[in-house]
């Protein structure tokens, strides 16, 4: 499943970038996400719980970051193993932070998500919707956190 999102935040590009490359802060802003352990500078262990319709999916796995500070571009690869036979989730996401003005920043996100198991069988009609909702919640938190 492909996810394309674009949103603007009323904050300087530098502070948005600082926020987005801090896994702890990102996890705190994303409902259900959690960072449990830092494996090395770019790799973390964590978990993600998400409800898709009647299905409650609970993943544990690793997140690896690859940052391009100059371009303010991040590429993230997350691999999760579902609990209770939920199957696996695998996501590659690239995001870019673009300065639109001194206190206006655009974030573009392109992600490719692949899931297996019951979520792929029953949840596919709802996953886009759930993803949109999660981005909305995330950007709200981001805006609040970075509010001047």
């Amino acid at each position: 499943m492909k996810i394309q999102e674009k949103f603007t935040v009323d904050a300087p590009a530098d502070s948005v970038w600082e926020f987005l490359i801090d896994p702890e802060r990102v996890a705190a802003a994303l409902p259900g996400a959690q960072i449990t352990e830092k494996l090395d500078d770019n790799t973390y262990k964590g978990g993600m719980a998400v409800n898709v319709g009647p299905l409650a999916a609970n993943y544990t796995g690793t997140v690896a970051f690859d940052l391009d500070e100059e371009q303010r571009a991040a590429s993230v690869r997350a691999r999760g193993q579902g609990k209770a036979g939920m199957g696996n989730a695998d996501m590659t996401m690239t995001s870019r932070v673009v300065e639109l003005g001194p206190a206006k920043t655009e974030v573009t996100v392109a992600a490719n998500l692949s899931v297996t198991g019951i979520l792929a069988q029953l949840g596919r009609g709802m996953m886009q919707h759930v993803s949109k909702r999660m981005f909305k919640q995330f950007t709200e938190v981001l805006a609040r956190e970075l509010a001047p």
Partner: protein
Amino acid sequence: MADATAKPRTSAKICGMGHSMKRKEDPRFLQGKGNYIDDHTLPGMLWLDIVRSPIAYGKIVNIDSSKALEIDGVLAVLTGKDLEAYGLHWMPTLMSDTQMVLPTDTVMYQAQEVAGVIATSRYAAADGVAAVEVEYEAMTPVMDPFKALEDDAPVLRTDKEGQEDNRIWHWEAGDKEATDKIFDEADVVVREKMHVPRIHVASIETCGCLADFNPVEGHLTVYMTTQAPHAIRTVLALVAGHVGLSEEKIRVVSPDIGGGFGGKVPVYPGYVIAIAASVVLGKPVKWIEDRMENLQADSFARDYHMDAEVAADAGGKIKALRIKTLADHGYADAQAAPSKFPAGLFSICTGSYDMENAYAEVDAVYTNKPPGGVAYRCSFRVTEAVHCLERIVDTLAHKVGKDPATLREENFIPKEAFPYHSPLGWEYDSGDYQAAMDKAKEMIGYDDLRKEQAEKRERGELMGIGVCSFTEVLGAGPSKDFDILGIKMFDSAEVRVHPTGKAIARFGTKSQGQGHETTYAQIIAEELGLPAAHVQVEEGDTDTAPYGLGTYASRSTPTAGAAGVMAARKLRDKARKIAAHLLEVSEEDLDWEPGTFSVKGAPDKSVTIQDCAFAAYTNLPEGMEPGMEATNYYDPPNLTFPFGTYICVVDIDRGTGEVTVRRFVAVDDCGNIINPMIVQGQIHGGLTQGLGPALYEEMTYDEDGNNQAGSFMDYLVPTAVETPAWETGHTVTPSPHHPLGAKGVGESATVGAPPAIANAVVDALAHLGVTHMEIPIRPERGWGALRGEGGEGGWVVSVMGWGGVRASQW
């Protein structure tokens, strides 16, 4: 039935053949008093629930059962490693392939069994399943059977020694060279590629069993959803002999079954895990699949990709048929066809038409789908064969500009030609195809419909008429060719008449809703003259029923039904001797009317069959063995070949592409009819199960191997809402070799309906250049993109994103 049945030979009281006796099993079914697997409980019974693979292909890195075992009520978690200790982690399939019971290292399809959780309740078992942590290392699955044969495809069955690609077997029938020659010289050749997709039997009752091993006696009883209890018991004895199970100490009981349709012939891992758990724990263990497990893990049918060609002369006389097929079996060849017939009875593909030669070949491949290929209401691949032929015959009619009914009539095997030897080796027992065609055309008003269609086309409305004249091949089968794991495919009956003239009849088959308790009772009534109401029919318990191969492939009436006739005739012969003794005349001086022996010329001097039964226990002729009991094991001399013509009328909504079946006439000829009402019921059910695959049903997978139709939310089986009012009729062409002249009927309609419907849809669009539609013909497959763009040639067909339609004008 629309027409009158021949007058029955017996009275309504006796209720033999030809009477529409109400089904003896219905009072319990209609009152919710059936006795299914899940109705069985035993003291101390435990529950099995199964951990299943969420991925289609991958390595098992680790199975952590610790959290599951902490749950109150969870007693054990069985994995492949546990079964390996008993050599039970693999099992043979009925096709001499192998299949995992539980994996030790690799999973091969989504929903594959990975571990079994045993608990004191169903709920605790389900909680345990959710708590078992399995770590997988996913691999890229092979989902496309064509890609499975490419050179760079990974070899899936690395467990099989010498397996170097994903090919399972190659099968062929017919004379290739002679057929090719006819094609080379033919005036007309038409060709279509078609897919009969994977579907699911979707019976109301899922699979399940209750395994009860008594460690003191060493005795195993398995209550099981199986269509073939005797064969299953023998298989259990053969594969589990090394752990101490011996055939005389195994009892398989198949109680009431809520629909089998071939899906309950194979042995699925769940059964084996439950049995293994019961043997290991010494307690009864019950396993009942839930709906999603059933739809995702087992009971799959079809999945034949066929490339069909017909050679004909310019007038449309068929000269030869050539079919090349790719069969997607999933991860194992676990179908349940007779041993010598890996592609089932696909070679019936020349159908109702006389032709010089034919050649058919099938290549079977492995993919990362669950094992498939069960004979879903079909006598082993007959559905695929008939769909292929009946579609391509329409293509030919279109090509040579003939009405599809006329083209069929001109190619029918004439009734004088029976017994007919088909180019692919069958001896058709009897047939009168023109009679069925005439009757179907008359019932539906064929000529008027063609006029109506022409008028509607003028107005731009879409209406189609589809014809299918199928020939089925049923009743496997004669022992010289037919066996399953070496066991010949005879079937059996044992009839005992009690002193008061009531009887019990036991059979080697097993009803799953077909009405055997009624049909068999009527067969005994016909032959013995006892009221059918007084004949108790029993099947399904290997401790009491005579040995038989079970019920599938419409074989019950052709095999076990015939055995019942033969056993009853033995008893009638014995009764005649007793009657002669009672009436003090010689046997030759007796006349037989159903139920009564009377002295020739003195009809008031008579005894009833009940009198004879009583005398068999109380007043025997000197030297006669007491009792009134007979057994017969019937080895049919040939298969039976029922046939019929189905005509379907569809209207297609120009805007949405939705297909509505306006009328459907089914004229069947299943030989002599035992119970017309049951036959009609079978045809109604079969037609509905043919409508499903034609318009709605398909089991699809995404490229990662995720099942995309694993619930009834996504897998649409037709309900009363979708089902049209079926119109049925029949002709009667008795089988010359069956003792009652009957042929079997359970599957004709499932086989005949899909091409009739598909042909009707193509017919509605033929003037637009459409020559073929893949089934299921669902509006959302892109049909909605059909739109009218008036032009010189009328319409332009534009079907976007769908390869299912081939149109010559764009």
